[in-house]
């Protein structure tokens, strides 16, 4: 408590000395300067007008600072300022504290999100990793990474930034779907080779191994075709194909939005503008043709 009062007295004497100096400085500065020597050679009317305007503005600013300094030198005002100054360290500490707390909270959230990646992977189990890996990736991406691209943007460029984020998001989603689609397409090749090996083992045991190399190829291609037919009829394939197409189309639409933004800054019509024009031409042509037909009937 005594220490606090000591601080206040110290701030008070320092402030009083600074205020006194400031008051004298503003008063001396506010005094009129040398008259119009800088504007020598200018037309008389303009010279006078310019001098007056500048000087008036300067003097009024200086007077305002001088008044403020004088007011602050009043004992009551000095007292209030001194008390406020004593509270500054506390305010700074609280501000820094809240900033750090917010930062740590965000960091904690990110760590939690990253931590959940492991939890999600566990849910699908790694014993069927080759089958589930793309689904796991898609799930992790959707739950933990995609939200970062959906954070609302601020400011003048918010719409452009959001469209860019959206494109990146859609691109990653498409890549995951496409990778799964390719994996499905590769499965029959892998399986057909295994089946061919088994078949060859059987033929070897029976001593009926084909003598012609083309027979091996024909055997393999027949097995491969059968595997593809089985795959293509499966609901899983239809679902993956549909998902791949959907994500690809979403990505293209998002990408086109960015292209529209880019094209707007160059002197060429955008696709959207051209489409509007095409639509108008289409309807006009239809109208003209109908009129032509009606006229020829008459």
């Amino acid at each position, binding site marked *: 408590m005594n220490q606090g009062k000591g601080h206040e007295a110290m701030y008070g004497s320092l402030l009083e000395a600074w205020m006194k100096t400031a008051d004298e400085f503003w008063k001396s500065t506010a005094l009129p300067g040398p008259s119009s020597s800088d504007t020598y050679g200018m037309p008389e009317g303009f010279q006078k007008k310019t001098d007056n305007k500048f000087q008036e503005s300067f003097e009024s600013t200086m007077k305002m600072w001088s008044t403020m300094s004088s007011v602050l030198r009043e004992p009551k005002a000095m007292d209030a300022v001194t008390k406020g100054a004593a509270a500054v360290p506390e305010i700074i500490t609280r501000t820094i504290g809240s900033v750090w707390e917010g930062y740590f909270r965000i960091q904690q959230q990110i760590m939690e999100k990253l931590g959940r990646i492991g939890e999600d992977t566990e849910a699908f189990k790694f014993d069927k990793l080759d089958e589930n890996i793309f689904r796991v990736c898609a799930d992790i991406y959707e739950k933990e990474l995609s939200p970062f691209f959906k954070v609302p943007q601020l400011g003048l460029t918010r719409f452009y930034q959001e469209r860019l984020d959206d494109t990146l998001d859609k691109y990653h989603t498409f890549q995951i779907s496409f990778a799964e689609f390719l994996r499905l*397409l590769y499965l*029959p090749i892998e399986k057909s080779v295994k089946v061919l090996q088994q078949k060859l083992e059987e033929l*070897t045991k029976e*001593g009926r*191994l084909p*003598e*012609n*190399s*083309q027979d091996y*190829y024909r055997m393999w*291609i027949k097995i*491969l*075709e059968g595997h*593809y*037919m089985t795959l*293509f*009829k499966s609901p899983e394939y*239809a*679902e993956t*194909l*549909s998902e791949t*197409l*959907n994500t*690809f*189309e*979403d990505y*293209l*639409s998002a990408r*086109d939005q960015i292209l529209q933004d880019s094209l707007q800054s160059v002197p060429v019509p955008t*696709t959207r503008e*051209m*489409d509007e024009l*095409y*639509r108008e*031409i*289409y309807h006009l042509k*239809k109208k003209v*043709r109908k009129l032509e037909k009606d006229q*020829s009937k008459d």
Partner: protein
Amino acid sequence: MEQPKIPVDTILRHLAEDAEKVQDRVQKASDILLGQLDTSIASTPYEIVYEEDRVKLKHYAPTSVGRDGVTTPLVVVYALINRETMLDLQPGRSVVDSFQKAGVDLYMIDWGYPTRKDKFLTIDDHVNGYMDNVIDFIRQHTGFEKINLMGICMGGSFCVMYAALHPEKIKNLITTVCPTNFDTDQGLLHIWMRNIDADRMIDAFGNMPGDMMNFGFLLLNPARLMIDKYVGFLENMDNKTFVENFIRMEKWIFDSPDVPGETFRQFVKDCYQKNLLIKSRMKLGGKRVNLKKITMPVLNIYGQYDHLVPPGAAEVLTSKVGSTDTEDVCLDTGHIGIYVSGKTQKEFVPKIVKWLGEREKNSTAPKTGIKDKKPVPKKAPQRARPSRTAGPKPKR
């Protein structure tokens, strides 16, 4: 001495022989591929008699008087997927040439290459717009009140729609590999199309890219279409005729115009997903496509091994139309084989010409008055060169 279970020596001998053969084949193939090759397609001369936007009407005049006496003009409507050049792929195996030799006055719609400006065109614009204008033009140009209409694949579906909406203009309807019943699990395409989000697709692409559709078709049988086909090419690349015909087919198959967005959207949703056409519930331009209005004779041809339009998708039509004169013909081939295989070449066109000839006897003579009407063409008829020897026109 006991014979070994596995004839290793024979296998090794065959391998050595194969290696020698491959060496020899590569040498010959190199001479063939570096030499002059005739890989032109659609080489039969024709005349463009009508043009509207990207759409052209090709006219192939008969080269002889046919025995079957078919005088009524025949209009062929191809699908919007791939091009009508398939009907004139190679000399000796040309549907167009066979029709000309049979004395048929043949017209064929070339849908051209849709661009982004065509994305708003619907099925209605194709059927009640372009097709109707083309058919009116032929009717006025030739003086026939009714003409014969033949559709291929999706073009067949368009012809069915047209015949139901304008029966007064069609004398006979021929549908070939034409999907009308989409509620079948026989073809993978039908299964996949049910899961396609057509709205999202068209919103993203504008028009349906031809290359993407081609990729989808390849995926229907990747073992055969992406591996075995090219292994077959490698095995026969020392045969010049084989190489020429193989490249002709490659040229045709990868010459895929985009499909106008709104047309694709409607075809997938109304046909593949809701199966409205065969139920007579599909609407074009506000008018219902009632199959019972198809009262003219109908010949329906399809392939037993067609993986794109399986028999289940094609054969139902004749039982749903209003006509009492219908015939189904199932040929022992696939989707493209109907038009290009040597075997079906001997069956396909002769069957159609004979069938038309039998119905020609009841034909009404051309009404001379119609011919005097103001002609429709936007451009004067012009002699066209045999087209597309230099590959497909850039799409965009």
